[in-house]
């Protein structure tokens, strides 16, 4: 099996730990750490040739980042 798969699984597990217990525990840190398991998922999708799912996941992640940043900045301003 491919290198991408094992790399993806490793990054997914590490990233999950990083996003679950971020340090310092702020919204922005957690949001940035969330990108790590997303990368792992992308590598897993890449290893299984799931092109369409991969591209759509990239697009949706971009939108969800905008949505979350909007909430975070209003929360921080309040």
């Amino acid at each position, binding site marked *: *099996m491919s290198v991408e*798969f094992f790399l993806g*699984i490793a990054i*997914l*597990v590490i990233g*999950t*730990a990083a*996003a*679950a*217990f971020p340090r310092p*525990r702020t*919204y922005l840190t*957690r*949001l940035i750490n*969330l990108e790590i*398991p*997303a990368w*792992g*998922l992308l590598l*897993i*999708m890449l290893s*299984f040739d*799931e092109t*369409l*799912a991969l*591209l*759509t*996941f990239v*697009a*949706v992640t*971009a*939108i*969800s980042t*905008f*949505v*979350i*940043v*909007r*909430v*975070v*900045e*209003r*929360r*921080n*301003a*309040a």
Partner: protein
Amino acid sequence: MEGIYAFGLLAVFASIVIGFWALVRENDDLHRILLTDLAEILALALIALVATDLAEALILPGLVVGISELMAISEVFLVREGLVRQPDRMLQIEVMDSAPGLLALALVGYGILLSGFSGGAVAGIGVIFYFVCKGHDERFALLETLSGYAWAMWIVAFFIFMLLPQYWFFGVLIAGAAILLKVAGKMSLVGTMRGGANV
């Protein structure tokens, strides 16, 4: 192949346990929303391990449902916490001043090249990014007009498929261009969510 699948499944389940443990220990609601995003990624990884066309067919609606759910939850959160008023000072990152023009141009150009649904998504991301970073004037009327034309093109393509099937390729091109406009226009509305003059 079986061993690989079992190994992947084990790793993803371990991550799910970590994720849900963090979710249970969390008290802050916004942190919980962020952890829900993590849970979504892990669920998608679980599906991706199926590794067939079935996985793709399951992931695509999962993504769409996930993003709409996130939007709804964030709106509910904002209303419940009473954060509907505009903050005076927005989050400012330097890349948001320098990047938008070039990046939006590249994304929209590549989106038009791709055409169809994926092209619309890519071009839409470019427009969203530009609107979010640079602000926007209210040009919703323009977007509505664009959407109307896209709808008309869609119908024309449909009639070509039905009445003149030998020109199917022409119909495919029209439909691809129409859905590009439609998806890009709809997605660019997301970019205006950050607030502005009349939003």
